[in-house]
């Protein structure tokens, strides 16, 4: 492993590193640290130099007009409340704009992101200027701007292809995440009326959530417990039954294979929220299922599908089977056909029955191949908002509680933020959800073959 790492280090070793640029760069390269692009001008790479310089000027302009102000506001998150001042002359109240902590926080974080981005470009500029210096002193060819552009289609293709996706991820995934995570350390909540102005409170919210002695803390532990139970059942039952179904359909003796597959796949093709909403209306106390069963004389009172705790929990797991089994069947069919037939032949000769063959050959093989799939399924189930929210809505909910008995961490998070506006507590729950998932995923994922030996597949 250690050896491997060393090899990796060497593989990407850069003769034009930043450290080298600082120690061995000539005066113009060093000037590039202050005036970006200076080194490029010296080596007649005018367009490149001008672009760097323009970038630097734009950044300085931004920092002077907005950036420093944004950063300075960040520690206090704004103090001035909106105030109405009676204007005698006009005979109306004039409202001052007042601070909005939410905007201040967002602008502050965005400014930090830009700052980091600037530092990266700045490093790139110094390195590239050092590279030009080195190449010039060795008498080698310096790329013109045209050639630089052309290299984007060849050796620097990764840069071209990744810019868009990375920007998208930065702005719409990482920035919001950092924003939400930082909210966990504030008192942004309807509690104490901190919806417009709020302050940093450190780890206080984490204390509230982990504390057994208050209502939020108690709910947290019970929701966490149910989330894990749900995820384990939902994942493994789906996996097992889905695989059995696939095996049944794949049997050599089974007729009309594609017809059976079609029946099950049809349920995937119907949008999930449609089928779940329909199930929900069908299973209401006065819904179709109860009415039909009553009319048939099988029951006298409605079955409490989503009103009794145990019934509700079993119902969501069972309905999730309806949703999930076809998926597993589809995923698994191809892999099942790849299991070497010799294994089954020799098992047959040794007199193994179907159960033993399944336990000793099929299951171990499938587990080996599909561990990453299982992990994604598990994390998907911990985050399975749709099934819970659309089916039971987290109900039954005890009076006065914020979380229902079938609420998962994610649906509780949704309720806390959207319905109750306890944003800070919601953010803490989100972080804990992540921690639970990260532990499970990292421990299992690191131990799978496909991660350790990525190229081994070939």
């Amino acid at each position, binding site marked *: 492993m250690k050896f491997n790492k060393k090899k990796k280090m060497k593989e990407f070793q850069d003769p034009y590193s930043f450290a080298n640029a600082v120690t061995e760069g000539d005066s113009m390269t060093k000037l590039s640290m202050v005036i970006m692009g200076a080194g490029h001008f010296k080596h007649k790479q005018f367009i490149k130099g001008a672009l760097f310089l323009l970038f630097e000027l734009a950044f300085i302009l931004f920092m002077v007009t907005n950036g420093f102000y944004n950063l300075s506001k960040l520690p206090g998150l704004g103090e001035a409340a909106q105030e109405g001042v009676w204007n005698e002359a006009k005979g109306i109240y004039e409202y001052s704009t007042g601070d909005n902590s939410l905007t201040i926080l967002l602008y502050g974080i965005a400014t930090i992101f830009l700052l980091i981005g600037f530092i990266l470009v700045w490093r790139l500029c110094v390195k590239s200027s050092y590279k030009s210096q080195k190449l010039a002193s060795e008498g080698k060819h310096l790329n013109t701007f045209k050639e630089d552009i052309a290299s984007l289609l060849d050796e620097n293709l990764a840069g071209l292809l990744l810019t868009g996706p990375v920007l998208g991820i930065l702005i719409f995934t990482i920035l919001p995440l950092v924003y939400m995570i930082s909210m966990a350390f504030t008192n942004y909540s309807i509690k104490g009326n901190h919806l417009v102005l709020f302050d940093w409170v450190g780890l206080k919210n984490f204390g509230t959530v982990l504390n057994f002695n208050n209502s939020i803390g108690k709910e947290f532990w019970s929701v966490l417990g149910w989330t894990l139970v749900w995820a384990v059942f939902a994942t493994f039952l789906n996996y097992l039954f889905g695989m059995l179904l696939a095996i049944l359909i794949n049997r050599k003796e089974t007729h009309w294979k594609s017809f059976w597959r079609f029946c099950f796949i049809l349920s995937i093709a*119907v949008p999930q929220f449609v089928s779940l909403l329909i199930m929900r209306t069908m299973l209401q106390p006065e819904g179709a299922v109860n009415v039909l069963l009553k009319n048939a004389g099988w029951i006298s009172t409605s079955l409490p599908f989503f009103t009794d705790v145990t019934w509700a929990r079993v119902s969501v797991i069972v309905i999730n089977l309806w949703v999930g089994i076809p998926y597993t069947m589809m995923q698994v069919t191809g892999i099942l056909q790849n299991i070497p037939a010799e294994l089954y032949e020799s098992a047959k000769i040794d007199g193994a029955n179907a159960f033993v063959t399944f336990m000793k050959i099929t299951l171990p093989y499938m587990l080996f191949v599909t561990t990453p799939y299982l992990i994604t399924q598990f994390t998907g189930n911990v985050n399975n908002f749709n099934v819970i929210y659309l089916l039971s809505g987290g109900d039954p909910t005890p009076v006065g509680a914020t979380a229902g008995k079938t609420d998962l961490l994610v649906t509780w998070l949704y309720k806390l933020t959207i319905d109750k506006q306890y944003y800070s507590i919601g953010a803490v729950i989100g972080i804990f959800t992540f921690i639970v998932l990260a532990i499970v*995923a990292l421990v299992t994922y690191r131990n799978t073959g496909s991660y350790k030996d990525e190229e081994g597949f070939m």
Partner: protein
Amino acid sequence: MAKQITKSYKTKKRIKNVIVHAFLAILAAIWVLPIFWVILTSFRAEPGSYVDSFFPKSYTLDNYVKLFTDTNILNFPKMFLNTLIIAIFSCIISCFFVLSVAYCMSRLRFKLRKPFMNIAMILGLFPGFMSMIAVYYILKTLGLSEGGMIRVALVLVYSAGSGMGFYIAKGFFDTIPKAIDEAAYIDGATKWQVFTKLTIPLSKPIIVYTVLTSFLAPWLDFIFAKVICRANSDYYTVAIGLWNMLSKEYIDVWYTRFAAGAVCVSIPIAILFVYLQRYYAEGMSGAVKG
């Protein structure tokens, strides 16, 4: 003697077969029943969600007609058009993103490759809509939360982060033999040419799969759409519309129309899906079978 054994073996096998088929038939019925129920409901003449028999007492096409003509409260045709526009644009962007990232991770070797893959995995563990409110404020700051820009906002929401979902496509690209690439490099091809002229044409199943999943996302999601559209009913997508039809104030009138709407949305998706699922299976199992 031997004949008898084979005979009893045969009957045993036959019984087993009958049991398996009966079992599959029961399961298939369970899976198809709710779908069958929606189709029946969409033709039901009696309004309301309350029923006392499985089959409707009388049938009508009125639900479909009303769904597309009664546009005062919930404008279903407009929602359909909104969703279609959003789906087409977000599909184009996400496909480009997913395929580029997957290709970079599979074929190109650069310093940030492993870190990128690890970060993508870690980010995938955060509950997606934990940052939903933050996304809304960012869109608001960018001026995308009002009027026609809502469509742009939704396209961005569905496609911007799609680069993280590269794992399946990467797995597929990994199975295309590297020797093909190397041969092309020897012939003087650039990496861009290899990507567009070799890898892409060899990857039909996974492209179809990516197109399909990204095209479907806007039809299926209603959480983000709800938060971003808020009360701007002009820009509602189909999912919010259907969800609203089941809310307390509309359910009595709109329940059967909801079923009709569900059928209208599901049929094209189902046809696409059933037709394309072989690509899905192929995409899962790799380009070149061993």
